[in-house]
């Protein structure tokens, strides 16, 4: 094939695509409007956006371009695009905890009025936690929730039965379960499988897993105690104390019961491993629950159970830095003497709009997010694993039929939804970090230190020192007082 022919073919193809894209919709509201929506390369999150865009275009005439970037680039791309005045991105689906860095410089559009007037999204149906924390900042609404995020532990119910184990309640239980199951053939293919599969890849979404493990040791007196810093002076709890050391020890030990290349596995890989039956345990958001019922790809349909994040019988005494046993005063919310700290990791992917976009584009972008969030569409998407959308509406928790229709057995649905609801309603829930430049604390400092620990470049002592030093460096660079007051206001501390 000659160059000329190839180029002609390409141009012809381009022409056809262009014409198809211009296919007129019936005098629709947003005819001729194009929205650039940025999110990360999924398929999670990007997939439902791309899937529903054509219907949205048919209904309203607005074209939706979904632009994907690697997760580790998302925060910076949005921030620089909007602060430098480039404004190529009209709207984005990202982490609510980054709102603080986008709202303060006035980059996000205040959508309080639009949300109040919007009947289609049924605002009261959105669980109060997500409505208040994931959508609002300083009392005004800036984002629309599309997804609800809580981390949980998933376990194989059949493996538990075979080994005579209970679902893990503490992290020591977790390790024991993993150790017992490791090396056994869990999916009948004749090859040895793994006790625990946790996504540990650097520059990905792994750093929330260590927070899930550590929180139970660090916070016991309720959400406003905070799980990241001391509320007096913003000294990191992720530093040299027995609690963090124990958490790091547990986290490192899970690697022994995992796949050999676990430190290069991202959530996509571990979910795949779990649903193909090669793992007995995993820590994840709600995705495994819905992926497990995929008739085409899952080998563990009806074999998956979910529990609230395991807890600990000992917690950190912040004065001495030592681990002390739980007592009713120290752990008022303990269940059976075990302190659980369910972690609202990430907050749930939500849609926000660029304040400086064209007014018509802003309207169209809001309409698109509203379209995605409406119960008719959202209720379907949260039951499909590959969307990455997890339940966040009360109706999604209460309507079991939704889930049984999607393929979950009633028991599994109760189990799964129960775990999420228990996390949602827990008084000792851990709120993800929301202070300015939280992304630097978590994605840059914590992630790098953990990656180095797992790679053997640092030992536990070194990792603790590294995280605390980096966090203090960032705090001092910004302003300790401002960060402290921001921290206290986000967790509701006095």
């Amino acid at each position, binding site marked *: *094939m000659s*160059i000329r022919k*190839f180029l002609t073919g*390409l141009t012809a193809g*381009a022409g056809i*695509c262009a014409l198809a*894209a211009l296919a007129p919709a019936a005098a629709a509201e947003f005819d001729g409007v194009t929205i*650039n929506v*940025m999110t*990360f*390369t*999924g*398929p*999670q999150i990007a997939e439902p956006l*791309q*899937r529903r865009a054509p219907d949205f275009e048919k209904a309203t005439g607005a*074209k939706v*371009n*979904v*632009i*994907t*970037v*690697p*997760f580790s*680039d998302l925060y910076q*791309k949005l921030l*620089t*695009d909007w602060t*430098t*005045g*480039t404004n*190529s*991105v009209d709207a984005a689906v990202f982490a609510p905890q980054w709102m603080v860095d986008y709202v303060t410089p006035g980059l996000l559009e205040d959508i309080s009025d639009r949300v109040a007037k919007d009947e289609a999204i049924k605002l009261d149906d959105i669980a109060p936690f997500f409505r208040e924390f994931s959508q609002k900042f300083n009392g005004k609404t800036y984002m629309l929730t599309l997804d609800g995020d809580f981390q949980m532990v998933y376990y194989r119910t059949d493996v538990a039965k075979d080994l005579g184990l209970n679902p893990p309640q503490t992290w020591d239980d977790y390790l024991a379960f993993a150790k017992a199951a490791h090396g056994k053939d869990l999916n009948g293919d004749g090859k040895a499988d793994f006790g625990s599969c946790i996504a540990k890849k650097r520059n*990905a*979404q792994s750093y929330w897993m260590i927070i899930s493990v550590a929180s139970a040791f660090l916070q016991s007196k309720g959400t406003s105690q905070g799980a990241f810093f001391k509320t007096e002076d913003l000294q990191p709890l992720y530093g040299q104390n027995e609690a963090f050391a124990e958490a790091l020890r547990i986290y490192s030990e899970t690697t022994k019961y995992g796949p050999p290349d676990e430190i290069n596995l*991202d*959530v*996509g*890989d571990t*979910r*795949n491993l779990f649903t*193909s039956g090669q793992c007995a345990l995993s820590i994840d958001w709600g995705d495994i629950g819905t992926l497990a019922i995929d008739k085409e*790809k899952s080998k563990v349909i009806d074999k998956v159970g979910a529990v609230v994040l395991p807890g600990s019988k000992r917690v950190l005494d912040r004065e001495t830095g030592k681990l002390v046993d739980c007592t009713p005063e120290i752990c008022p919310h303990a269940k059976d003497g075990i302190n659980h700290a369910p972690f609202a990791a990430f907050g749930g992917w939500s849609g926000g709009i660029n304040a400086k976009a064209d007014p018509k584009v802003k309207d169209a972008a809001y309409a698109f997010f509203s379209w995605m969030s409406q119960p008719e569409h959202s209720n379907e998407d949260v039951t499909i694993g590959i969307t990455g959308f997890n339940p966040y509406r009360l109706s999604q928790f209460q309507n079991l039929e939704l889930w049984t229709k999607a393929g979950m057995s009633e028991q599994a649905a109760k189990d799964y939804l129960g775990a999420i609801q228990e996390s949602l309603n827990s008084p000792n829930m851990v709120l993800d970090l929301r202070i300015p430049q939280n992304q630097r604390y978590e994605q840059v400092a914590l992630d790098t230190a953990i990656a180095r620990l797992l790679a053997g470049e640092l030992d536990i002592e070194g990792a603790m020192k590294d995280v605390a030093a980096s966090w203090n460096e960032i705090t001092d660079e910004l302003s300790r007082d401002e960060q402290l007051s921001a921290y206290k206001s986000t967790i509701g501390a006095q």
Partner: protein
Amino acid sequence: MKLFEPAKLGSMAPASKLIIYGLLGLWTFIVLFPLYWLIVTSVKLPIHVADGPVYLPFVDYTPSLHAWRYIFVDLGRDTFRPYLNSVIVAVLSSILAVGAGSMAAYALSRLEFRPRLISIGLFILGVAGTVVAVTLAGVNWRVAAAAGLALTLIVIRAARGVPSPELGNSDILFWMISQRILPPVVAAIPIYVMFQQVGMLDTHFALIVTYTTVNLPIVVWLMYDFFSTVPKDLEESAELDGASRFRVFFEIVLPLAKPGLVATSLLVLILAWNEYLLALFLSTANAQTIPILVAAQNATRGPQWWYMSVLIIIMILPVILLTLLLQRFIAKGLLLGAVKG
């Protein structure tokens, strides 16, 4: 037949031939196998990957076009956009690079330039001064640039009488070619800042201009060698007849240099198509090119290699086609004079 002795003088022993062909064949396999694997993987279903590798379509498994359909239809617009951007940026920047580069190479090979060191020094001072004015003193960049340029030119002209060492053509050439040593990342950040200041981030223009500049040294290097081998007689007689240099260049020299031009254009086209780092820094959404799209798959897809294979295939297919065209010129040794020299 003796294995270790040549059958006749001047040829090789059968054993040696066997070894040589064997080794070369092994390397051919090493070169072609990854490409084969890409094609084969792009028509696999998820189950064909999850259960372990399969090698032959129709024999080991039934191929399916689902991945191709997904990328071209479901994700059609989001695939097409970066592809079109890549085409536009690569073609336009190659044209500009080859144009400006050949002109410079021609001039360097036919004329003698004697830039004075002092003029160069003054120019650098002028640029530095403009930068300082814009960033520290907050002067509007257009004003500062115009004023800086004017001031610099005036001072250079005034300093005409000042004695200063002169550089020659070879120094200019060396300077241009040494730009290749400059790691792009050093320039990428300031170029990013530069385009941000003028509000041209994430535009085709930014990418085109940057790619042109980055590839200019190669064009100058290659075309300079090429022009050096073109005899000057035709040009000299044309000049005696009174033709301007422009006419001589465009009507006589360029047609003579067509093979070299085509070879260089193909090479620059390929380099611009493959460019990753600069696009990474300078583009966000509107100007996203295909290497960025492919690299962004570095995410939570897990082993969804069928989609990635499709993307990689459509990314490298034009390059391979261009390469096959280009290698004809490599065979003729057209691009090797530079290295041998």
